[in-house]
């Protein structure tokens, strides 16, 4: 069953690759560097999905005290941090040829970096509490605080970058994009979402095995 899903995920990823490189055309203004977007944007989407799941699982854990909810939160946070890191890295690599600099404090990179550090702290907290039950409880509380903080981060950073400071940097993302590029983007969205589900289910299973091994 899992093998089948893994296979499907792989096919999805390959499809996304083919669409990103074979079918989608060379972008007019940025050249082929724009193809990095097929990595960068789906990564960010998965990250947000992951942290949303952390919120739901955290609340579920506090209400029901189901170990499975705790494991889901943990796994999703870990995969979320993974994809957030990937978002930052790909964003930076995209930025160098496009804007001439490895780093820029634009709205997306800044907010994603704050998210990265927040959830890295989540994983750190989990790692530092030995008592399993207490760790789960505290992580759940932190997961809730962090999730509610996401919109605050968004708005504050966006206003910080745009008010009194017209966006001089090209803002990557959808807008008036030709249909074929949107299609490639969506294909990669789907592929990455499949990958997220695959990773989280395996990671959560691993956590269950680890818990059983300690019992």
């Amino acid at each position, binding site marked *: 069953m899992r093998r089948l899903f893994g296979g499907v995920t792989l096919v999805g990823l390959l499809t996304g690759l083919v669409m990103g490189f074979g079918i989608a055309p060379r972008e007019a203004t940025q050249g082929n560097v724009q193809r990095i977007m097929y990595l960068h944007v789906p990564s960010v989407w998965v990250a947000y999905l992951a942290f949303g799941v952390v919120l739901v699982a955290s609340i579920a854990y506090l209400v029901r005290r189901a170990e499975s909810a705790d494991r889901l939160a943990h796994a999703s946070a870990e995969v979320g941090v993974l994809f957030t890191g990937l978002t930052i890295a790909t964003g930076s690599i995209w930025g160098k040829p496009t804007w001439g600099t490895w780093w820029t404090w634009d709205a997306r990179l800044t907010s994603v970096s704050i998210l990265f*550090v927040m959830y890295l*702290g989540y994983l750190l*907290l989990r790692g530092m509490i030995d008592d399993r039950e207490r760790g789960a*409880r505290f992580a759940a*509380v932190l997961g809730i605080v962090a999730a509610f903080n996401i919109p605050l*981060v968004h708005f*504050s950073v966006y*206003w910080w970058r745009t008010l009194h400071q017209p966006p001089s940097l090209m803002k990557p993302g959808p807008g008036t994009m030709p249909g074929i590029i949107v299609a490639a983007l969506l294909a990669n969205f789907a592929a990455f979402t499949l990958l997220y589900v695959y990773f989280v289910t395996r990671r959560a299973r691993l956590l269950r095995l680890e818990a059983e091994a300690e019992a």
Partner: protein
Amino acid sequence: MIVVWKDLLVERRSKETLNALFFFGLLLLFIFQFALGPDRERLAGTLPGLLWLGFILSGLLGLGRTFVVERENDCWEGLLLAPGDKSAIYVGKLAGNLLLMLVIETILLVLFAFFFNLDIAGVLPGLAVVIALGTVALAAVGTLFAAMTAQVRARELLFPVLLLPVEAPVLLATVKATEAVLLGEPLGSVAHWLKLLAAADVVYVAVGVLTFDFVLEA
């Protein structure tokens, strides 16, 4: 309420936290001056940021110690086993922390005005609003996280690591708003920042009140 009184009494008797934070604030001022050099122009531009840097660094020290008394004197179980709504403890501690932070911030503000020759008399009401809104946000999350990290190893490291990323939007908002206020602009011009701070305050206090029971579970 009782918790607030207890903490206040403890503070007044020992006074160590207040004194230590006062000297810390003074030191920060010197370091800012040394780090930024004698260039008055550059200094003036960074003043709102420096002010809040001073607030937050003092806050990290002060807030991190919220539960140190309970922890050091082995009263932690007392907290856990206390009957009734644990959120009352949260509110009490929060009020105490608010008071502590506001006192420190006032002192820091006066020192800043003195050393950097700021004329804050005219902009005081606006400044007070910004500082009040920002401080609630800092204290609300700080109190919650202090409880969570109190029993963790390497708590002195984990507390700032957890608090600072969460407070990033608050820091952005307060610095921008303070900047405007110090330039003499009316509060209305930074209404969006103030609304963000108010929203943050509501969210943080609400989450704190609702989740504190889970943090102090026996």
